[in-house]
């Protein structure tokens, strides 16, 4: 028991990195995903194709392989691309979540009634103005539940970066367990994961309510 209490600071430190990895990756992913989604619904066939290929690759290969590729394989092929572990992990998770978020955003945008775009155009708005002021803002509320799902999935998938020796929550736990020979450390670690996912579930429920005022 004492050993577990002693290892709590290390565990919390790992949880903090897990938290940071998830938040930053989801924010970059949302930003990139929005552009990928707009690209997919663009009338420009080339932009559509490029975005399609991006999503095809990042959804179609394992995240673990993408992490390996960015951290090990790229530097071996071209040494200036050598990255420290932390940026490599951020990049891999962001690029991967962008692909999933792009499809979520695309579905939300396309679910908005066609009459909205017509009304905007009839008032003289350009396609860009209509997207920015009318269509995308309406998709926020519909985005929240699936983005919440993606967020929680990413929080847990971030444990995969332990493979490149990044001491986030999962790797910290394994290290402590190996060093002390006490597997009970997995119980507080699991509790920490649960705590994080619970906090975010509540946050997303609040957001959903906030964006429901006009419905």
């Amino acid at each position: 028991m004492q050993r577990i209490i002693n290892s709590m600071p290390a565990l919390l430190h790992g949880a903090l990195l897990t938290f940071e990895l998830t938040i930053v990756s989801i924010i970059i992913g949302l930003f990139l995903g929005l552009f990928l989604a707009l690209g997919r619904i663009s009338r420009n066939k080339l932009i559509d194709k490029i975005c399609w290929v991006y999503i095809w690759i990042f959804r179609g290969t394992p995240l673990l392989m993408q992490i390996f590729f960015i951290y090990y394989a790229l530097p071996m092929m071209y040494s200036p691309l050598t990255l420290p572990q932390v940026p490599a992990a951020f990049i891999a998770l962001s690029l991967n979540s962008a692909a999933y978020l792009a499809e979520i955003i695309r579905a939300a945008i396309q679910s908005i009634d066609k009459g909205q775009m017509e009304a905007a155009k009839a008032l003289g708005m350009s396609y860009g103005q209509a997207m920015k002021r009318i269509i995308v803002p309406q998709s926020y509320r519909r985005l929240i539940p699936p983005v919440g799902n993606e967020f929680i999935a990413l929080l847990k998938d971030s444990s995969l970066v332990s493979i490149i020796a990044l001491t986030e929550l999962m790797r910290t736990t394994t290290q402590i367990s190996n060093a002390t020979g006490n597997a009970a450390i997995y119980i507080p670690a699991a509790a920490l994961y649960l705590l994080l996912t619970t906090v975010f579930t509540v946050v997303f429920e609040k957001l959903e309510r906030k964006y429901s005022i006009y419905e």
Partner: protein
Amino acid sequence: MNNESGLQQMIRMEKVGKYFGNLQVLKNIDIVVTKAEVVCIIGPSGSGKSTLIRCLNHLERITSGRVYIENELIDERVQGRDQLKIPPKKVASLCSEIGIVFQRFNLFPHMTALENIMEAPVTVRKVTKKEAYEFAMELLKKVGLEDKKDEFPSRLSGGQQQRVAIARALAMKPRIMLFDEPTSALDPELVGEVLEVMKSLAHEGMTMIVVTHEMGFAREVCNRVIFMDKGEILEENTPEEIFSNPKHERTKTFLQKVLL
């Protein structure tokens, strides 16, 4: 430019045809609407009435023929090929000169009544917020809804939503107003309030094309009634003539059904 009768032409369609795939929805349409005229288009559903007015502000593109707005050629097609290639910016500015009111209102649900009306003047015309606000309040007063300015559309009745939609279109100071079955989605007791607003617009001299099933409105307010069936204009006359003395067999059958 004026025509022989000395009235300014607001809208002219010449030999307009429109296909959806292989289905011909407009055949050889010729229409002239002059300034301050109120023209009603009636006819069975699927006759191409809505498509016709949607071709005027580029919500639908014609397949053949020409469309003029205030004597300016805005669309010309030969077998679907665009002869003018007007840049999108120009199209947008043309659209903002022509207001349209939709059957299903299409208000922006994430904005209040006031924000709905202010949106296009501020975003498109770059009018100051203060100026847009003042004009929007004036318009809300005109449609009798100043006390609803901060309500979201979901909190308004259908009739109130449609009146906000009319105010939203008027905010761009259009020179032509198109109405696409503006009362068809309303409960019967709410139809009157929308027609009242349209009537007062007509009295102010707005040029209007109204696609409608409200025969009372067509008879009372319109200068001219056009009867369409299967994509063709079959008959065009004053309301008195159309309703009391229809010439075409299909007009007679249609009117018998709706005027029961």
